[in-house]
């Protein structure tokens, strides 16, 4: 009887201690998350301009953590490619990171577009391909995480096409996010 009680008591005490430790650990981890959010201002990943920054109308702001591409053209029945309008840079010289592409918002009529595609040229490229059937858009799914090597830059290729009878001045606005895993 004494042995059973002793074993159970030890088990209970150890488990409670473990849960306490885990709870305490969890609190520390959540605190670390908050710390990471604060250090975003000096993060390792940011945008830099590519060779095609002028033709694509690239503007960087918010310490290169936000970008606009205002001059992308879509021509009727033509594949228009911007091979290097903007890059994602991992500025850390000792740590690889992981990023993914996430669709955020899309406005503009689908009637006159065929597709607008964004591809991050990592060793395994990831893409967000917005396609239109002439009536409605199909928004792509969030990509998986891919590695961005330390001290390395990766281009985001943009490809567009309007349909054969598209008139000029139709506009589509797309916001995407490059999400950096902590």
């Amino acid at each position, binding site marked *: 009887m004494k*042995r059973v009680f002793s*074993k159970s008591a030890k*088990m209970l005490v*150890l*488990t409670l201690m*473990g849960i306490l430790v*885990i709870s305490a*650990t969890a609190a520390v*981890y959540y605190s670390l*998350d908050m710390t990471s*959010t604060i250090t*975003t201002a000096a*993060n390792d*990943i940011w945008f830099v301009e590519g*060779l*095609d920054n002028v*033709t*694509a109308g690239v503007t960087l702001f918010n310490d290169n*953590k*936000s*970008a*606009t*591409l*205002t001059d*992308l*053209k879509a*021509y*009727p*029945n*033509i594949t228009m*490619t*911007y*091979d290097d309008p903007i890059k*994602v840079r991992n500025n850390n010289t000792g740590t690889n990171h992981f990023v993914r592409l996430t669709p*955020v918002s899309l406005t*503009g009529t689908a009637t*006159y*577009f065929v597709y*607008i595609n*964004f591809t991050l040229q990592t060793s395994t490229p990831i893409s967000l391909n917005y396609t239109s059937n002439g009536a409605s858009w199909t928004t792509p799914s969030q990509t998986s995480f891919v590695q961005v090597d330390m001290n390395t830059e990766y281009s*985001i290729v943009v490809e*567009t096409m309007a349909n*054969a*009878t*598209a008139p*000029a*001045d*139709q*506009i*589509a*606005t*797309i*916001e*995407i*996010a*490059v*999400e*950096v*895993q*902590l």
Partner: protein
Amino acid sequence: MVRYSRYSGKISNPVLAAAALLIFLSLLLQSVLGTAYYSLAMNAYASVSSPPVILQNGTAGTCTIYANNTSAKVNVANTTYDYVLRVNNTIADSWQIRLKKYADSNINRLQNCTIYFHNSTDGTSSQVHIENGAYTQDTGTWYNLPSLATIYIAITVVTNSTGTSHVHSYLEILTPNTSTYAQYVIAFEIT
């Protein structure tokens, strides 16, 4: 030594159980941490524009120009055609252009086939060349398309049998000193 050994045996099971529980909960915590991220925002504005470079009919062969003058189908037979298409720059900007084969069919019968550019002042520029059914050149060198200028696409064909061959190509139009380019589809049908 004996007492130590017996004591060790008694406490090992609950310790192991607790340790296993701790490891399991720690793994759960790792999973939660794996979803944390921060975001860079990118806004892209794409507008439909009129093509600054358009395709126009030539004076030889049979040519079909499709909507918005951005794609074409050329039909030729066994001879020289100068010219089957015109590439017309309608604005003041300059470009560089080339032809690039991306697909074909039944080209074995093409003993000699050359698709080339020329303008009114400079020499010719071979873009796609097939000899005895095999490519000796499937992508051309860049050729200047100056402001408001016209480039002519010509073709010379020698076949060694009857039939129909196809060469599907892109006319690539590059903004100089960038990697921004457009691809127009041009199909050559050779009977």
